[in-house]
């Protein structure tokens, strides 16, 4: 590889980055592709495929990665270039939202881990995090369709070449955006979490608030679980998790049974979450009505005690 000659292999960061490049090339994924620039191995381009069964399905989202000179002791930075309705473009993605707190970044993670995490976080609720967007599903789907038409124009001709190469590869791997957006039978757990948080202000009268909160917290851990699996064997990832079905992260063929086992119990949790959300919605409606009634002075009719 041409890049090898130009860099000081004594530099541990360079050595590590070259190993990651090699590893990426020998274990290609259908869900993402990432390449360093010829002229600067600390600058990468990437594209991820929108996760299946979400409004991002079929979308091809390009972005840049910048690796710090202290890599892998310091985390990489990510920035998206393709409009997607979830993350702002040309703005660094705040890693804190992905549980990748920069102070807890660890050298056992990699660009691959971070990309898998990024895919997993696309369908989660932004909860107002910096650099996050909360577009409607239809808008996101429009953007997903548009994302396939052409690769984003960015940077030097050399960089553009890398972007285009990645785009071609991803087009060959990613099936088109589905005709009809499936009725979202399973609502996004992240959204429920947001609801639960919102309703805390409304009142604690409903028991379901607390239980939904607990569920929400658990849901928030799922993408983190996906991250674990990324460096292990992602083929075993439960389909219901936020990660697309075929994250071929399989670096090691060895199963990590004991680390995966406890996470395969999602289905009942999901059902529980759905009921919790229904309960929550009822509680909110009730509270809002109560408030309206109160403010309009007709409360005595409905609620004698107040």
């Amino acid at each position, binding site marked *: 590889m041409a890049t090898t000659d130009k860099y000081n292999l004594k530099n541990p960061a360079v050595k590590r980055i070259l190993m990651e490049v090699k*590893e990426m090339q020998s274990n290609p994924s259908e869900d993402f592709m990432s390449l360093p620039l010829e002229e600067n191995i600390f600058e990468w381009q990437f594209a991820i495929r929108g996760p299946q069964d979400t409004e991002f399905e079929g979308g091809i989202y390009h972005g840049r990665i910048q690796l710090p000179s202290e890599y892998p002791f310091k985390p990489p930075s990510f*920035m998206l270039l393709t409009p997607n309705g979830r993350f702002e473009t040309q703005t660094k993605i705040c890693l804190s939202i992905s549980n990748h707190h920069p102070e807890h970044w660890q050298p*056992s993670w990699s660009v691959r881990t971070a990309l898998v995490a990024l895919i997993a976080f696309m369908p989660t609720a932004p909860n107002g995090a910096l650099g996050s967007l909360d577009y409607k599903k239809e808008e996101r789907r429009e953007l997903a369709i548009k994302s396939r038409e052409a690769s984003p124009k960015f940077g*030097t001709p050399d960089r553009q070449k890398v972007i285009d190469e990645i785009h071609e590869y991803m087009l060959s791997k990613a099936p088109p955006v589905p005709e009809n957006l499936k009725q979202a039978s399973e609502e996004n757990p992240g959204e429920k979490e947001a609801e639960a948080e919102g309703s805390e202000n409304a009142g604690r009268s409903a028991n379901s608030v607390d239980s939904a909160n607990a569920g929400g917290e658990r849901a928030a851990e799922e993408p983190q679980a996906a991250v674990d699996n990324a*460096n*292990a064997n992602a083929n075993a990832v439960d389909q219901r998790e936020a990660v697309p079905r075929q994250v071929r992260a399989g670096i090691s063929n*060895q199963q*990590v049974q004991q680390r995966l086992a406890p996470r395969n119990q999602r289905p009942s949790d999901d059902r529980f979450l759905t009921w919790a959300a229904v309960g929550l919605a009822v509680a909110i409606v009730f509270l809002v009505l109560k408030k309206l009634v109160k403010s309009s002075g007709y409360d005595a009719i409905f609620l004698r005690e107040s």
Partner: protein
Amino acid sequence: MAKQQEESNSNPAAAAAGDWENFRDDDIMLQHSAIRAEQADKIPFLGDKEPLSALAAEYQSGSSILLEKIKILDEKYSAIRRTRGDGNCFFRSFMFSYLEHILETQDKAEVDRVKANVEECRKTLQSLGYADFTFEDFFGLFLEQLENVIQGTDASISHDELVERSRDQSISDYVVMFFRFITSGEIRKRAEFFEPFILGLNNATVDQFCKSSVEPMGEESDHVHIIALSDALGVPVRVVYLDRSSCDTGGVSVNHHDFVPSALSSGGSGLEINPYITLLYRPGHYDILYPK
């Protein structure tokens, strides 16, 4: 902002960068590096050998119990070597103490023994699902240091060079990270054994504990880390405690605890284990102690 522009001018690749610097991740990291810089001004990763009187001088106007204890330490120990208080002090102390011991004794049998243990740890990490490339560099760098302290090859290093290397971030941090991988692998491998300790310590699962308190750089070490590292490498460690506790009987004594690898202690050889790594623990910090 001016600084940012300057950077993008000087670096064509970053010219298109725009807003890399504006996020709260960067604020957090800036604060972290500011704290580290402050520590770095005070002491290098590894200090010089100092007489115990230097330790006593620190407490001149302080607690009389501590001064009493330092007097007792003075009977058994000749010197102290400080390490930087950046959360990695246990691992840095362990690294230097161990390599210094090998350098001084030229114990090749011990080198072979520890290498075999390192290989075991490599397999452990692989079986836990760690990708090779994430730990390979760190293993390589430690094994290189281990070989270099053995004299008689072109790559052999002197004691001074060992000190120098231990102060060089690109070596010291890599060895620290190597130990963190070893520690995390051992804890995960024997999760059932470590679980109750970890639950008692900070109410976390083994996985959470490894992720938040073992693998990230700068996270302080506790007895769990020491047990795991000592067991995994088969290296006994003595920790001498210097704190304000005193005996009920009025007499002052200095406690120590020997962390003896399970492989050695269960051997039933009846031999008294004499750890050649001795660390001085003061709440929140480890330094190296030299016995007389």
